[in-house]
């Protein structure tokens, strides 16, 4: 079920009402049933895959706690990880790896038949797989007690607000919340609804409108001029941010309405002064996941310089592969790793340069330059991420600066009259974010007299209603 659907508009108030009406002993069951319904709205049969993953890690968690021998414990952990990852591999990567292998064999003159498999990737598979893996690792490390109640564990993996696109929660943060009593609290419900409203603005007004342009241009880049390619790339940076952070806002808000606290997933990433900072502000639940379960176990930065570089490259390349079974994602991850390493290696030189030209750390010009250069580097990486293949990405790179025609901006789906709306939406987003970085907007608005406040809220909702795009486009990150 999509958050931006009529079904969800009926589903969510009903589930919320039932949740608060039921006694605690039935609430988890309700959440599990609701989560199953939510997931089955996509492809019902795929819930079986989810059940397999849940069963593997549920049993593994219990045995990991029981087994005392460290060696046996480690074997059990790896069996659990490999089993869970096998499911992910079959549904997400089998075609990619076999295709790549056949391609590679072709280079050596072995013409192997390309296996034809018609598997549709289950929505959000990478997310709940990672959440499940996080649970077994934490139980293995002794940071989390094994959950013996199957219903509670299944609800932890399937909790509908964050089931298909995160935030990827850690058991220490979420699991215990299913055992706690959440009273109906107006302030929490209202805050959750406001958060959802902001998420819907990002998704429906910004992301989905920009998507019309981006899809047209990146669908056939050779039909568009340099200006259109540049604009589409700029729009994609905002589209993917608003799509994904909008989803996270709706997820966090929906959970908050029910009394749950989910972790933050984004922290205005385009205000970063370096790629390293960007990755601390973008998809936080995933980057911390990779940090805790891949980068640190590899040795992190407490190793030789070369090994540290290798660790970073492995982490980012695997992170790229997590995003999709396509070489564009792998190269995108690799490129980000490269950015980080170059940034790390040149840090001292760059500092000396800035100081030499008189731009000290807190100079506005230095900050602006760093912010813009980080955004540009990110956009360059987004080109690879969004392109259908590397040929298209190369074409976009080489034609960004050519044939700019200001009389030819519109596309088939994106008429010229939509352009001011798109820019206005981005402007509202930025004003909202900047304002919130100075003072908490919800707290500020909360002090306004009720009539004025409600007028403001109503105007905002009507803006979403009137300027939103309702083509029921999926959230980009569902595919991952």
């Amino acid at each position, binding site marked *: 079920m999509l958050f931006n659907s009529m079904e969800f508009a009926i589903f969510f108030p009903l589930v919320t009402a039932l949740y608060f009406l039921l*006694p*605690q*002993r039935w609430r988890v069951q309700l959440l599990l049933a609701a989560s199953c319904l939510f997931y089955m709205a996509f492809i019902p049969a795929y819930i079986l895959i989810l059940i397999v993953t849940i069963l593997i890690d549920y049993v593994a968690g219990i045995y990991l706690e029981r087994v005392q021998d460290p060696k046996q414990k480690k074997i059990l952990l790896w069996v659990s990880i490999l089993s869970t990852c096998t499911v992910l591999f079959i549904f997400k990567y089998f075609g990619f790896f076999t295709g790549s292998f056949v391609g590679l064999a072709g280079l050596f003159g072995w013409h192997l038949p390309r296996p034809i498999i018609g598997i549709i990737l289950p929505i959000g598979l990478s997310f709940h797989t990672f959440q499940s893996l996080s649970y077994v690792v934490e139980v293995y490390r002794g940071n989390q007690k094994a959950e013996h109640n199957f219903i509670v564990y299944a609800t932890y993996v399937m909790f509908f607000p964050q089931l298909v696109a995160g935030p990827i929660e850690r058991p220490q*943060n979420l699991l215990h*919340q299913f*055992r*706690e*009593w*959440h*009273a*109906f*609290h*107006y302030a*929490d*419900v*209202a805050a959750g*609804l406001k958060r959802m409203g902001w998420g819907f603005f990002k998704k429906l007004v910004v992301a989905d409108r920009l998507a*019309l342009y981006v899809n047209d241009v990146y669908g056939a880049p050779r*039909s568009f001029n340099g200006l259109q390619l540049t604009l589409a790339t700029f729009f994609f940076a905002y589209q993917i941010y608003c799509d994904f952070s909008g989803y996270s806002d709706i997820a*966090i808000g929906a959970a*908050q309405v029910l*009394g749950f*606290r989910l*972790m*933050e997933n984004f*922290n205005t990433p385009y205000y970063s*002064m*370096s790629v*390293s*900072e960007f*990755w*601390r502000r973008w998809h*936080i639940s995933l*980057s911390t996941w990779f*940090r805790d379960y891949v*980068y*640190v176990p590899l040795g*992190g*930065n407490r190793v030789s310089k070369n090994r540290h570089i290798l660790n*970073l490259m492995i982490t980012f390349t695997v992170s790229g592969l997590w995003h999709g079974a396509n070489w564009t994602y792998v190269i995108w991850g690799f490129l980000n790793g490269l950015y*980080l390493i170059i940034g790390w290696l040149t*840090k001292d030189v*760059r*500092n000396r340069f*800035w100081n030499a030209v008189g731009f000290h*750390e807190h100079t506005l010009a230095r900050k602006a330059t*760093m912010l813009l250069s980080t955004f540009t580097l990110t956009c360059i990486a987004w080109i690879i991420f969004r392109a259908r293949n590397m040929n298209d990405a190369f074409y976009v790179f080489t034609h960004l600066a050519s044939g700019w025609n200001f009389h030819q901006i519109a596309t088939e*789906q994106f*008429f010229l*009259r*939509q352009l001011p*709306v798109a820019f206005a939406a981005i402007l509202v987003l930025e004003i909202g974010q900047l304002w919130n970085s100075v003072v908490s907007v919800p707290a500020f608005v909360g002090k306004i007299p009720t009539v004025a406040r*409600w007028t403001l809220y*109503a105007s905002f*909702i*009507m803006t979403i*209603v*009137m300027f939103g*795009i*309702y083509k029921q486009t999926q959230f980009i990150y569902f595919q991952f």
Partner: protein
Amino acid sequence: MANEPTFDETLTRNAFPASADVARLDGNGQPSAAQTHAEADAAMTQSWSGIGRIFSFFAIIVVLAFAMNAMITSGLRRTKTSLFGVENQIMEGKVNVQVLIAGSSRAIAHYDPRVIESITGHTAYNVGRNGAQTDMQVAFLKAYLAHNQKPQVVIFNLDAFTFVTSRDVFDPVEYTPYLYDPTLYDALRKINPGIWKSKYIPLYGYVVEDMNFSWVRGLRGFFGWNPKEDFFLGFNPRTKQWTDDFARMKENNPSGVRFEIQTKGMNVMQDLIRTCQQNGIQLIFVYSPEYTEMQALEKDRPEVFKLFHDLSQQFNVPFWDYSDWKHSNDQDFFQNSQHLNLAGAEVFSEDVANQLKTYLASHSQSAENSQLTGRLNHPTQD
């Protein structure tokens, strides 16, 4: 940069501190019973007050949505110019002409009723529909007939895709203000059963089904603002010169295109003929000019044209084929392979008006003759 944190720096941010309302449960799965009854009552009252506030707020939103919907609909129905101006004239029964032109976007862009009026001396109007397949064109024609006096002649413009029926309603917002009309609503419901949402859910037809901000036009219309006129007696000329549409189409379809001949499409055409016959309207089929090179790319054109001729003969409907029009090979007269530009439309309108004038003259002559013959045979009838 000097103090820039490293990748390893821990990120353990949680936006929300643990809520004070989250309390551990006792063994019975109920809140640990430290609260007194008074506290519980106060909490309950607060909860109900909160629920009331949330309901009140969403009730206001619903009322606003209904009010906005009513304003937009009213504004669009008040619009006097452009597309909605044409639709309002039709739905308010203010057209009442002798020669009516119906069809798709090719009809809208090809027939200038002003030229037809000046040459034939008969009043004329164009009710062509952009993006409409034959089923929608016929439905709109029926809506016209329900609200206006019957025309003497209907020129129905044919297309290569005439026998293909609609998969979806193109630009449904064009019909949203008029969903009260049963003919139109039933036709739309057959194409898209979900059209009820546009009728009954406030704003659905204006914001979900439309991305062109037609609601802005509606609000402007509500306050008396009319858009610039670009429809002339229903004729909406295409001012652009030859575009690269055809080149792109050829690139995407190097082996040509096929248009299905659907039984449903045949039934719609027969329904059109029946409707005209029942209303005593002279129906004329016209295949307006199409760029010559495109004609060769339409793979089942011979079959489609055979059906046009069959229908024409079977039901005695004149069929004027302008496939070999004198300018069919001249890009100066076209915007793309399917649509004439303004210059092309003016020349074609003259040609078709002259043919119509001749036809009407001979038709009235033969009608007079048959009336005279009738009088001679039945002298007491008068």
